[in-house]
């Protein structure tokens, strides 16, 4: 079936008609810029990094967490060994092959230099890219759109989810793909008679007409990229909701749309103050679909994984000691996950400060030894190939340092 016939078939099945594309979203096309992409996954609510990358070699870990620790490798429900000192949460088993292939790394004891333990402030700082400064008007990924080399298309940056997140807000245009099944649900402008009428109304070249036209083509591109999935959903019935689907959709978009350079998605539910669980339980139940989704994303990207860098981060870590409710409270240092093209994986980066009482931040939390901005700066510099000036524009006030990240990304 050629593309045009396929579109007609699809239109018949769903009531949607896809206009022929100006660019080729179907066949391989020349990527804009240098073809490198960055995907950022934000875990809102502060994931417990000590359960993600478990310091099983550190006896203090087991002393602090009598009920919710992940056992050392080799035990029932034990961690999956990474490097003889750290292990992966067993619910993240789908990521182990990526670790072994050397495309997954972690930066432990990383995070924001700001001391806040407020989700609101900490997320704000991580998204604005300016810890301690509340008045920054835009997000760092929006500033990044502005300095990316190459032509800008309506789908240069894509946000998954209904509301534009802080990290992508700012003067540069961002395409938006609602989360879940509503992503591909037809909207009024997808109906040909409606779009024809409005296309005529906005046929000019003033600012407002240009914005309209870009919005229409972004939607068209995303719909065509997702056409197969829509058909599958129509034919095959509803698949279970959740991140694996989101990730699958994202992989399709990235693979099909050479213009897509930046993507952002956030997942909630990590604020485990009560009954966090260990190898099983609340946190494990959240980590499992995350691991499956990321593994699926890597697989779905296929050869494009080599051009795509995926960074997973969270606003802060959680207390080293478990609390009285089988949970953990707001802490400080966490682990960042780095996956994809150019990653020299199979290694834990950063400086591990240890969990001995004397090493803890304010006597309770994993210390931050690597500023999260240094990890992002590496990604901008080594992966997206930005100049120092461009990196400074995205992350103003970037501190010096980052020796412990040496080798993380090969240029």
């Amino acid at each position, binding site marked *: 079936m050629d593309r045009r016939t396929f579109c007609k078939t699809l239109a018949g099945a769903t*009531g949607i008609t896809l206009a022929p594309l100006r660019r080729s979203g179907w066949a391989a096309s020349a990527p804009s810029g240098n073809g490198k992409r960055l995907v950022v996954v934000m875990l809102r609510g502060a994931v417990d990094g000590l359960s993600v990358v478990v310091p099983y070699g550190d006896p203090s870990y087991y002393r602090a967490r009598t009920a919710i620790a992940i056992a050392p490798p080799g035990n029932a429900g034990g961690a999956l060994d990474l490097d003889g000192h750290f292990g992966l949460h067993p619910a993240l088993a789908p990521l182990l092959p990526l670790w072994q292939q050397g495309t997954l790394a972690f930066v432990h004891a990383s995070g924001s230099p700001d001391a806040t333990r407020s989700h609101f402030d900490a997320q704000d700082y991580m998204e604005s890219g300016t810890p301690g400064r509340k008045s920054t008007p835009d997000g760092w990924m929006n500033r990044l759109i502005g300095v990316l080399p190459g032509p800008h298309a309506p789908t240069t940056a894509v946000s998954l989810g209904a509301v534009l997140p802080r990290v992508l807000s700012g003067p540069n245009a961002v395409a938006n793909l609602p989360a879940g099944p509503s992503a591909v649900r037809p909207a009024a402008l997808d109906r040909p008679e409606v779009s024809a009428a409005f296309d005529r*109304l906005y046929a000019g070249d003033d600012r407002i007409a240009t914005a309209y036209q870009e919005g229409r083509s972004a939607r068209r591109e995303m719909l065509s990229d997702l056409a197969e999935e829509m058909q599958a959903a129509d034919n095959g019935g509803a698949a279970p909701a959740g991140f694996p689907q989101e990730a699958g959709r994202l992989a399709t978009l990235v693979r099909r749309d050479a213009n897509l350079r930046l993507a952002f998605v956030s997942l909630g539910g990590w604020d485990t103050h009560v009954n966090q669980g260990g190898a099983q339980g609340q946190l494990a139940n959240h980590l499992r679909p995350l691991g499956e989704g990321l593994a699926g994303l890597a697989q779905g990207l296929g050869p494009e994984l080599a051009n795509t860098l995926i960074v997973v981060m969270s606003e802060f870590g959680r207390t080293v000691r478990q609390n009285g409710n089988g949970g953990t409270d707001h802490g400080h240092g966490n682990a960042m996950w780095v996956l994809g093209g150019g990653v020299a994986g199979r290694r834990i980066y950063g400086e591990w400060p240890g969990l001995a009482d004397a090493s803890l931040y304010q006597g309770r939390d994993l210390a931050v030894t690597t500023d999260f901005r240094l990890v992002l700066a590496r990604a901008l510099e080594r992966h997206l190939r930005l100049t120092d000036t461009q990196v400074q524009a995205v992350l103003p006030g970037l501190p010096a340092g980052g020796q412990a990240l040496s080798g993380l990304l090969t240029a």
Partner: protein
Amino acid sequence: MNARRLGTPALCALALLAAGIAHAAALTPEQQALHVLNRLGYGPRPGDVAAVVAMGVGRYIEQQLAPERTPEPEQLRQRLAALDTLPMSAAALFDQYGPPAVRPVKDDPEARKAVERRARIITEQAGEARFLRALESPRQLEEVMVDFWFNHFNVYAGKGLDRIWSGNYEREAIRPYVLGRFRDLLGATAKHPAMLFYLDNWRSTAPGIVIGRGNNKAEGLNENYARELMELHTLGVDGGYTQADVVALARILTGWGFNRQLLARGTATPFYFDAQRHDFGDKVFLGRAVSGRGIAEGEWALDVLAAHPATARHVSFQLAQYFVADNPPLGLVDRMARRFLDTQGDMREVLRTLFSSPEFWDAANAGAKFKTPYHYVLSTLRAADVPVANFRPVFGVLAQLGMPLYGCPTPDGYKNTEAAWLNPDAMTRRINFATAVASGRLPLDRVPDPSDDRGMGGAPLQRAAEVPGRGSGSAAPGAVDPELLRRTLGNQFSAKTLDAIASAPPALRAAMILGSPEFMRF
């Protein structure tokens, strides 16, 4: 619209206004009426343009500047009275929805979530009240100023206790003062627990003193509120203060907070000055020596800030940007700032200067501002004159457009410029919304199911848009009549737009009017 009650002072002011309106020669009487309905309110409802033409724009402006003389309609009052959390005090909200309600179930995640879900009703009802008034109150300028000042003194309903207090903040700290003296507004926001919590001043403590335990532990000075108080609320970022002034003001304001124990007992006024936290040392603020004497230092500092020329200029600039143009004419800003200082910050007088200025009436400025999502949604519902029983789809649309009510996380509030809101995604979403409203397909007339607890951030537009696969050949019941809509909005459309509308299928014409480039602006 009722002009009978205008008194003599108002008539004097009318003469002043006439001076500015004389510059409006380029605008026809109908265009003048549309301009004031758009800028002093959320756009015309059916019949409004003709009514303002009949009464004269000068009288309309005077009526809007004196909202206390126009009672809210009985039907509106009844609908507001049905919102049971609306009149609750900050203490009662704290007691029934805050930590005292969570504590007994805090070890049970499900029960805890249920309490938190229950608390969403507060913000939802506050939003409903805001929308009901903006849609139905004849005191339109009052509603516009509530939006202006709320954003100027923004708090965020997504942060902790502000989930329960943001609506109360609007009712007690903003609404009573929107056309009053700036100092009163400043003081009311400074003492409301929603602001004290949002910008962390409640935690701020004289250096060296440690108070509280666990997550409530306050150690040391917190500069957040002091900084925003000068940068955003009063002097402006270029207002001539230094980091040393920020620290001095933070020290002056130590102890300004609320007391959880007293709040929980429901007996206290929400504001509480905690002398134990206060820094009684001497300070230098804006070049003046301040001796440590407790709460009076803070009151003095607010006096100084409210009367400062930089504040007059900063506030005037923001008002002129909001009411006139994204890049406001600086001559107008100067005249407004002078009026601000001459009248000790009487906002009614500052606005009178604005509304009577040639800049406000300049034909180049009329219809040139790009609507915020809030303004766009409200003006759409007013023009289409759709009764709204269920606001959830509307709140969902606002969230999708990036402007959820009470949902701006940053202290600078939502912007009102074209640069902030005109983008490709916004345009397609606005048009999808316009089409849904025009075709009567948004479920606005159904009373929401109380068991549906998705609250204000849901995605009901998509749900509503599931229907339209049917094609647009037949008008659905509840569809908006395009002819009526055109009469409501007056003659503001370009020949090109009229031509595109005329050549579209009749069932799409109302959607095209509401989705037209002219209706995106105001």
